[in-house]
């Protein structure tokens, strides 16, 4: 019992600590791909600490909501991230929330972020919020359809169960799973505001989506939001890895040895996926905002197709 | 009843239908009124004949009413109205004479068909009489709807009513026949007076029902 709780706690801390590292790694790889030196891996940590130290410049019009939001966003994202199996499945509190809840938690984080964007009353906040909800209104259904198809294969929306099933031999190779994987990747890109949907490094307000919403944030508030963003990326990466590369995942109530193996495997998966992401992002260019619906529409269609295929195949 | 009486009754009833056709044919007011007078006379005869063969004496009263009131009073009154009103002699018929006659023939056949479906057990005289009466009624209606002029419409209505009286008298031992004929005479008097009244009240410049209808309920 105590051990289980400890493992759960370890996982929470792990995701918190790993998230900036993942970002740093991605940036590093991208820089290298562009033949640049690139910032050191620990740069994100430094950024966060510096932001913590800086004073907060609050817009005159900002309300209490604006100041509470960063903590809400951070908390929701952290909890969501902590509920995704990273190195071990079936943790103490894993049954608190299934995949649908995790998606919804991210949804509530986004909800408040959009509100905060509109709170100050500048046009940039409005731009960001309206574009964000438009993207989300397509990404969320796609995500839920992916959840459906996973749940239909594994017969559960409980991530541990899904992972266990995907690890088991009877899963086999399925077209629909491939489709959902592609869809999931596309959704993940959109949700994390990565290229080609959005450019995390842009400084041109009119092209911003995510950045525009948090344009007014500074200091410790910004640090919270940044950290939440890092956590979100980590969440999606570990989600993909635990569902589609479930190997080495420590099973329910496993001993320290299995856990160690799981952790090692997890780090390896993270590295691989981060590299893939970096390569992809350097390979493609950012698309215009109103191409995004087509992009996500494709994801939606893929997910729906995958689900339908499953329904059909199930009856055969 | 023996053949002769039957034939006479039949003859009279038939000739009433014939006179109705003559009315359909008329297109001048005076002539129409005269023909109607003839219609009334024939009716009086047939009613009297019925009274005789059924020896129902009260029917003689009906006959008398028909003779005096319809054959004399009303036509004279209508003549005077027409002169008083000085309305032009021609009847502008809504439908041409030819089609009207054809329609009339159709109506007569229709009434024949209807009445011949009646079981033969019924009193044959009643059947024939009814067939004729029905045709007269339909013809009277036809006159009413094919004439524009109020006077001729009144005439049509009266011929229709003659058909009723014929039917009523043809029905053996039907009570209230006299009262009914009286009531109808009063009704007709009302109508005639109405036509007349509208004239003297200076409300309508002619009794042409079309003019009378210019208001037509609700103005657009």
């Amino acid at each position: 019992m105590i051990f289980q709780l400890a493992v759960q706690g370890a996982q929470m801390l792990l995701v918190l600590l790993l998230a900036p590292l993942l970002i740093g790694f991605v940036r590093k790889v991208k820089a290298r791909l562009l033949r640049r030196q690139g910032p050191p891996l620990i740069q994100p940590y430094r950024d966060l600490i510096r932001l913590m130290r800086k004073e907060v410049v609050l817009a005159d019009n900002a309300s209490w909501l604006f100041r509470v939001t960063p903590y809400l966003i951070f908390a929701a994202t952290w909890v969501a991230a902590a509920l995704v199996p990273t190195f071990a499945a079936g943790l103490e509190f894993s049954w608190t929330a299934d995949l649908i809840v995790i998606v919804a938690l991210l949804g509530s984080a986004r909800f408040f972020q959009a509100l905060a964007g509109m709170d100050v009353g500048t046009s940039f906040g409005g731009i960001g919020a309206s574009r964000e909800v438009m993207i989300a209104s397509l990404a969320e259904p796609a995500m839920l359809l992916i959840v459906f198809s996973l749940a239909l294969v594994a017969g559960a929306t409980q991530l541990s169960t899904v992972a266990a099933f995907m690890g088991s031999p009877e899963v086999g190779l399925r077209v629909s799973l491939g489709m959902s994987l592609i869809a999931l990747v596309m959704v993940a890109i959109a949700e994390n505001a990565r290229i080609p949907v959005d450019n995390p490094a842009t400084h041109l307000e009119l092209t911003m989506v995510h950045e525009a919403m948090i344009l007014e944030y500074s200091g410790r508030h910004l640090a919270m939001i940044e950290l939440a963003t890092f956590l979100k990326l980590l969440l999606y990466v570990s989600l993909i890895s635990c569902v589609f590369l479930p190997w080495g995942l420590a099973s329910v109530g496993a001993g320290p040895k299995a856990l160690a193996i799981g952790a090692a495997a997890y780090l390896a998966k993270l590295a691989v996926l981060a590299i893939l992401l970096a390569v992809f992002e350097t390979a493609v260019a950012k698309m215009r905002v109103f191409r995004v619906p087509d992009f996500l529409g494709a994801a939606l269609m893929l997910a729906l197709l995958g689900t339908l295929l499953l329904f059909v195949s199930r009856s055969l | 009843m023996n053949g002769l009486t039957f034939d006479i009754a039949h003859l009279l009833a038939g000739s009433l239908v014939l006179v109705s056709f003559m009315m359909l044919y008329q297109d001048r007011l005076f002539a129409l009124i005269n023909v109607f007078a003839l219609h009334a006379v024939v009716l009086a005869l047939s009613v009297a004949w019925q009274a005789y063969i059924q020896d129902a004496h009260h029917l003689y009263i009906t006959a008398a009413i028909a003779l005096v009131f319809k054959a004399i009073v009303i036509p004279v009154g209508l003549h005077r109205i027409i002169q008083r009103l000085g309305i032009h002699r021609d009847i502008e018929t809504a439908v041409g004479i030819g089609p009207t006659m054809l329609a009339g023939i159709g109506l007569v056949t229709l009434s024949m068909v209807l009445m011949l479906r009646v079981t033969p057990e019924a009193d044959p005289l009643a059947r024939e009489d009814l067939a004729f009466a029905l045709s007269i009624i339909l013809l009277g209606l036809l006159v009413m709807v094919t004439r524009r002029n109020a006077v001729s419409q009144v005439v049509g209505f009266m011929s229709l009513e003659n058909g009723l009286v014929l039917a009523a008298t043809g029905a053996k031992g039907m009570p209230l026949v006299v009262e009914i004929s009286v009531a109808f005479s009063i009704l007709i008097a009302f109508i005639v007076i109405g036509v007349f009244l509208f004239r003297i009240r200076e409300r309508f410049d002619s009794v042409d029902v079309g003019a009378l209808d210019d208001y037509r309920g609700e103005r657009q």
Partner: protein
Amino acid sequence: MTAFSFNAVAAILLIPAGAAAILAALPNYKMTAVVNVVASLLTLLAALSLFITERPAPGQYLIIDDLNIVFIVLNTFVGFTTGVFSASYIGHELETGRLTAPNLRFYHAMYQIMMFGMNLAFVSNNIGLMWVAVELATLTTVLMVGIYRTHEALEAAWKYFILGSVGIALALFGTILVYMAAQPVVGEGTNAMVWSVLIEKAAHFDPALLSVAFIFLLLGYGTKVGLAPLHAWLPDAHAEGPTPISAVLSGLLLNVALYAVLRFKLLLAASPEAIGPGPLMVTMGLTSLIFAAFMLYRRRDIKRLFAYSSIEHMGIIVFAFGMGGPLANFAGLLHMVMHSLTKSAIFFAVGHIAQVKGTQKISEIRGLTESHPGLGWALVIGVVAIAGLPPLGIFMSEFLVVSSTFARHPWLAIPLVFGLLIAFGALVLRLTGLAFGEPRGGTAPVEASYVPMYSHLALVFAAGIYLPAPLVAWFQHVAGILG
């Protein structure tokens, strides 16, 4: 006991007749109004006494049976309330000078003669006598419709008169045909016209004759019921006559004609080979309903609007009786009673409204619930009732008609519901304009007699919630008679 009860029947006829004679003699209009009300009240009491007294055996001329008692009581009751209403209404007319004292004398006398005619039509056991009575009632109303002597009034009266006379003639021919059919079986003489005798022997009558007879009777009396396409006289007569007469026309005279049709329907139903009256009546009912429903939309005159709604409801009633069966007949009876009460109440309200607003044009009347709450809400309740909304009586009858029809002949229910909906839309549309919005038109306070209209509405409301068991049993029995 028999003696007294015969007096009751006689009273129903004699009180109006006598009152008519007196009224014709009286000069003062206030007094005539009072006498009129008193006479109507006495007649009502006499009618009510029919319930408690034992009935006479049907004679050659008069009859009291379950069927006509309903009609008589309704008739005398509405006659009474209308008398009360007209007392206040006519007073206003006299002040505004639309009517003169001699007019009024004539008016009240005619009113009583009309009541006499209608009562006679109800109690008569002799189809000839019934015919005479109906015509008497009709002709008196013709005279009263024309009482304003305006161009429109005379024209409406004339139209009513001509079409009515044709109807009279057709009905008479039908009556003669019935006699001809009966005479071989029953034998010559009055007996062949006594309804209670006919109904027993009807099975042996000649079916073909009966069928022709029924068509003439349906058209003849149907003209007075106001069934499309024989309705032409009805809207104008309602719109141009004095409002009490509109109320009586809609509330009573239509019922009289309907009653006659029903009597002959029974006769025909008793003879199996004859043409079925049901399909004819259903067709005419649906035609009138849908036709009137559409006509409601383009009406500009408030009284003409409700006249058309009367046509619509007569259509529903005839449809119900045409459907037959215990449920539909019950609904038909209920609907007839409810319609009489509601429609007369509406006309009471409309009469006062037209007086205070000084116009009958719908477009010039607005926001009544603000300018004259008493009248406005009465109108709202009345229209809500007539549109068949609960918790008022007409809802129950329409509920029964529609549901029972749909269960038996779904394809008949569709046009029925269609017509109901169309009419509903029109009525509510007009109501919205009349009762709500920025008040328009005269806002002078009105000394209206609220008692008649609200008592009617209260009755309708009560009936929608609760029908007393004896009344129900009564109606069910009558519905049984109607087959």
